[in-house]
C-alpha cells in the first residue's frame, strides 16, 4: 500500500533512512526514543518534510514530490488540529471542501461523521468550548469525512489522560475498520501498541526498521528495542 524505496531524509546533522512496505489495512505503531525521527518519518510521508533521496509510492503512485494536500493521507498532529475560530461542523466540513456552502449530500456526510464520533449536538460549538477528548473526537470526525486511505497519527492524544487515550485509540480502531484505511501512529507506550497495532516500526540510530509483527516484537524484542522498552 505504502512503499518507501531507499528513502533518505536529511535535516542539518540529522539523517534517517527507511526502506520498507506497509501492507494495506495494516495498523502500524511507530516507536523509538525521543529525537529518533518518528515524527520526521510521518512528516515525510505526509509531505511536510522533504525527502533527500529515494521514492515514496502510495497505491502504485509516486508521491515523493506531491503537495501535502494532494497525497492520499490524513494526518493528525500533536496539537493545533482544529481551527479555534471555527465551529466543530465547519472544522469537519473543511475536510471535504474549503467552501462557504456544502451540498446537502456533503452536509449529511459531515453530520454523520460528527454523530459517529459521538459529538451530536455540539456542531455549533467552538474547540475552546470542548474538552480535550471532545476536541480529539472532532479531529477524528474530520479524518472520517476526508476518507483518505492512509491515516497518520503523530501523538494527537499525548495530552490526554490514560483512560481517555485508550478510549480514543479504541475509537480510532473502530473508524479505521469502518473505512478500511491503513494506520500509522507514533507512540511511546507499549500498551498502546498492544491495544491497537498489528505491526511495529522501530526507529532508532538513523534507521526506520521495516515493520514486524507487534506481538512477536514485544515478546522477543531485539537488543536495541529491548534497551528502549527497558
Amino acid at each position, binding site marked *: 500500500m505504502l512503499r518507501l524505496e531507499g528513502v533518505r531524509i536529511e535535516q542539518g546533522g540529522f539523517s534517517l533512512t527507511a526502506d520498507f512496505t506497509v501492507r494495506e489495512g495494516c495498523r502500524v505503531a511507530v516507536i523509538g526514543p525521543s529525537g529518533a525521527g518518528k515524527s520526521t518519518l510521518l512528516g515525510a510521508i505526509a*509531505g511536510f*518534510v522533504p525527502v533527500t533521496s529515494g521514492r515514496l509510492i502510495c497505491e502504485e503512485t509516486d508521491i515523493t514530490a506531491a*503537495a501535502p*494536500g*494532494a497525497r492520499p493521507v490524513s494526518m493528525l*498532529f500533536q496539537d493545533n*488540529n482544529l481551527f479555534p475560530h471555527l465551529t466543530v461542523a465547519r472544522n469537519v466540513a473543511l475536510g471535504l471542501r*474549503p467552501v462557504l456552502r456544502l451540498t446537502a449530500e456533503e452536509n449529511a456526510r459531515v453530520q454523520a461523521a460528527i454523530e459517529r464520533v459521538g459529538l451530536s449536538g455540539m456542531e455549533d460549538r467552538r474547540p475552546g468550548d470542548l474538552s480535550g477528548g471532545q476536541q480529539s473526537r472532532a479531529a477524528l470526525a474530520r479524518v472520517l469525512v476526508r476518507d483518505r486511505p492512509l491515516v497518520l497519527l503523530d501523538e494527537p492524544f499525548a495530552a490526554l489522560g490514560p483512560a481517555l487515550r485508550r478510549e480514543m485509540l479504541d475509537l480510532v480502531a473502530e473508524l479505521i475498520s469502518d473505512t478500511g484505511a491503513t494506520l500509522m501512529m507514533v507512540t511511546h507506550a507499549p500498551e498502546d501498541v498492544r491495544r491497537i497495532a498489528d505491526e511495529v516500526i522501530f526507529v532508532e540510530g538513523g534507521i526506520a526498521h521495516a515493520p514486524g509483527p507487534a506481538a512477536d516484537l514485544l515478546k522477543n524484542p531485539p537488543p536495541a528495542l529491548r534497551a528502549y522498552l527497558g
Partner: protein
Amino acid sequence: MARSPQPITGAGGRIAAGCVVALVVLAFAGIALRAEPGRGIGPAEWSAIRFTLVQAVWSAGLSVLLAVPLARALARRRFAGQSILITLLGAPFILPVIVAVLGLLAIFGRNGWVNEVLGFFGLPGISVYGLHGVVLAHVFFNLPLATRLLLQGWQSMPAERFRLAAQLDLPPWMIFRTLEWPLLKRILPGAAALIFVICLTSFAVALTLGGGPRSTTIELAIYQAFRFNFDLSLAAFLSVIQLVIAGSAALIALWIIPDIPQGAGMDRRVTRWDARAGWQRATDALIITLGAGFLLLPLLAVALSGLAGLSEVPLSVWRAAWTSLWVAGLSILVMLAIALPMAGWIALRARGGAEAFGLIGLSASPLMLGVGWFILLNPVLDPVGVSLPVTAVVNALMALPFALRIIVPAVRGALESYGRLCIALDIRGFAAWRWLILPRSAAATGFAAGLTGALSVGDLGVIALFADPDRTTLPLQMYRLMGAYRVEAAAGAALLLLVMALAVFWICDRGGRWHAAA
C-alpha cells in the same frame, strides 16, 4: 529545518508592495523633474532646516524626559480610573492634530485658562505661538506615546525583582540604579528617536502654531512655496531637502525604534513593595494629576466650547464632515487592499521585513508625495479634481507602516500555528485567507483600520495643498474657520471632528474584535 510548505504565496503581497514603491518613486520622479540642483540653499531654507531640527530635538527630549516620572508613577501606583487613564494615553494617536491645537489654545492661548490665572495674579501672559507652541503641541502628542513605551518596559520587568528589592530593603536610589536605570537606558533612546522622526515631518502643528519666518518647518515651507507662490521648483527643492533629512534620520533611527504598543497596557498587575513613603506617594499623585491635567484639560476645553459652538456650525462644515467620512472610508479600503496582501507576504519571510516599509512611511512625507504627484499629474488632468482620492491614498500610505506592524504578527501567528493544518487539508490561496488568516487576524485588522480611519478623518496635510472651496475636508474647513476668527463655529467643528475620529476608530476596532469573537 527546511522551509515547510505554506498555504499562501507572497505574490499578491509583492504586487501590493510594488504599487507602494511605484507610488513613492513616481513622487520622487516628479520632484526630480522640477527641482533645480544648482539652486543652492538660501537663508530661508537654512532657517527652515534649523527650525525643523531644533523643534524636533526639543519635542523628543521633553517628551521622554517628562514621560519618565509619569510612567514611573503610573507603574507603581494603583488608583481608581487608572486603566481608563492608560487607555486615554493611546488617544492622541487618533486625535486630530487641529482639534488638539484648538484645545491647547483654549488652555495656553492668549485668552486661555492659564493666562487668565496669570492675569488674575497680575503676572505677564504667555504666548503659545512660535517654537514653544510647536514644541508644546508635539509634547502633547508624544508624551503619551513615550509614557506607553516606558510603561510597557516597566511591565516587562519580572515581579520577582521587586520582591527581591523589597527583601533586600533597597533604598529608592538603589532601586533606581539596579532596576529602573537599565530599563530607561534600553527604552529611552528608541522612544526619543521615534518621536524625533515623527516631529521632523510635522505640518499641521507648524501651520497653526508656527508659521513666521523664524518658525517654519520644511514641510510647512513646501506648503507655502506651493500654495502662496506656486513656485513648483522651490517646492520640489524643499521636498528633496525634506527627503534627505527625514530619510537619513529614519534610516539611523530604524535600528533603535521600538514596537508600537497596541493593547491598553497594564494587563498584568505587579505588586510593588517599594516607594511606600508618604512623600513618594504625594509626588506620584502630583505627577499623575499634572500629567492627566495636561492631557485631558485641552480635550475638556474642546468638548465644552464645542457644545456651545455646535449651533454656530455652518452648513459647509457638515458637507466637509461628509467628505471627510468618505475619504476616510476610501483610505481604509486602500490601506486594507495594500496591507493585507503585504502582511501575508512579510509573514512568510524571515522576521524584520516590515521595517523597510516603515522607513518609506517615515521618510516620504505627505506634502512631498503631494508635490511630486502634482507635478506629474498637472499636465495630464486637473489635480484639484482628484484631490480627495489623492488625500485618501496618501493617508493610507502614511498609516501603512503602523498597519503592517499591527497586522503582520497576527498573520504570522496564524500561519505558524495553523499553516500546517491548512496544507494538510489542502486549503490554499483565497480559501486559506477566508478560513484561516482573515478570521485569525480580524482583531488586528480592525484595530489597524480604526487607526487608519481616525488618522484620515483628522488629517490636515496634503488636502491643504490642493483644496478648493468645493472640495474640502473637515479639518481643513475647521482651519479656515479658525483663520477667519469664527471661534464658536471652529469649536463646534472641532467637537464634531473629535467625535467622528473616535467613532470611526471605535467602530472599526469593535467590528474587528466582534468578528474575531464570533
